[in-house]
């Protein structure tokens, strides 16, 4: 089934308000309803997405190796990474929470980076198999990414709540900032990637 596309008809969809516009042959057109600049595709989508993903992949390492939480008690100081926090939940009788945190903090960011790389490479080489599957993959990535912030909130509330001066205090570690940056960078990457690129090259071939 071949459907007409906006680009093939010389039309542009306004990213901001969703209005389909006919730019004619004007240079640098702007949307008549909301005033946003009209682009056939997101500007420099592939380049920008690559840059953000590479930055996220690099920060993923300190996010997992550095402590995200430091606990001071009368007797000792213990440093927890994301993984050791998960192990703690597992051992202390909450395997369900251990699985949840593993999924949102370790699995989702990594899977997101790998899937985005796959989408980029496939779009750059104009792969025309599995188009619908890749479209679905992108929508899932877009939807699921925000849940990776879970651990940042757990850390914030634990640090803020546990203030028993004589017994224990908890501080956030440098890993927390790195982890937060990974989540933010991958969310921006999903935003700069233009999913229409999945379909563009395959269209030209047929």
């Amino acid at each position: 089934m071949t459907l007409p596309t906006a680009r093939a008809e010389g039309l542009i969809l306004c990213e901001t308000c969703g209005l389909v516009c006919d730019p004619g042959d004007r240079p640098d057109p702007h949307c008549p309803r909301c005033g946003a600049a009209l682009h056939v595709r997101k500007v420099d989508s592939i380049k920008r997405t690559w840059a953000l993903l590479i930055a996220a992949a690099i920060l993923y390492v300190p996010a997992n190796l550095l402590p995200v939480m430091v606990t001071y008690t009368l007797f000792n100081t213990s440093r927890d990474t994301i993984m050791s926090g998960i192990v703690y939940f597992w051992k202390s009788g909450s395997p369900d929470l251990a699985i949840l945190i593993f999924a949102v903090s370790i699995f989702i960011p990594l899977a997101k980076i790998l899937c985005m790389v796959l989408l980029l490479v496939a779009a750059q080489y104009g792969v025309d198999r599995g188009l619908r599957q890749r479209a679905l993959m992108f929508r899932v990535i877009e939807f699921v990414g925000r849940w990776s912030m879970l651990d940042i909130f757990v850390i914030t509330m634990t640090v803020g709540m546990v203030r028993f001066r004589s017994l224990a205090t908890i501080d956030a570690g440098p890993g927390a900032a790195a982890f937060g940056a990974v989540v933010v960078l991958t969310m921006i990457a999903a935003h700069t990637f233009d999913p229409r690129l999945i379909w563009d090259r395959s269209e030209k071939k047929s």
Partner: protein
Amino acid sequence: MPKPLPALIACPHCDALYRRPTLGPGERARCARCNAPLYRESIRLDPDHLLALVIAAAITLVIANVSPVVRLSAGGITHSASLIGSIGILWQEGRALTAMLAFATTIGFPVAELAAFTVLLVLIRRKPGSPLVAALLRGIQMVRPWGMTEVFMLGIVVALVKISHTAQVVPGVALFAFAALTILLTVIISYDLKALWALRPLPEADP
């Protein structure tokens, strides 16, 4: 000015072009090529109902932020913690980046969205064509993905389970306020902003 073609609709995910179908209440249109949802008809919520929800959410948000989330006791010491207080502690201890991230996603962006939404919904009935309406709508769209109240709600629950191993936990008012806020924001966000854009008059196409 480029010519507006409101009778057409293009899929933002794959660029397929369609004639805009007429939908019944509650129905949604999906793209035949990539299966992405195109738009839905949310008849049950008109801008006035939405305004009431937004104001309710704003009040709930204030309660959620200033009142204590929990009261903890361990070894004879009791103290309570609010969200703002917890973020303040992160900040004081030099965790500026983490504190800012938590502040922006739980307080900053939701407050900005609700404030902008209130002004927008009042204004859009009187002057749908005003440039301020466009600016507010654009601002809301930009800020929306970064408000994460529902994720934060789950975060508190996990933190409480964790702490309950070492201290006694009594849930505070804010915990219930956050639960209510999560529900209110879910309803507000389910409203398609494209429907508000569509209230703006289109300029005459130039000859």
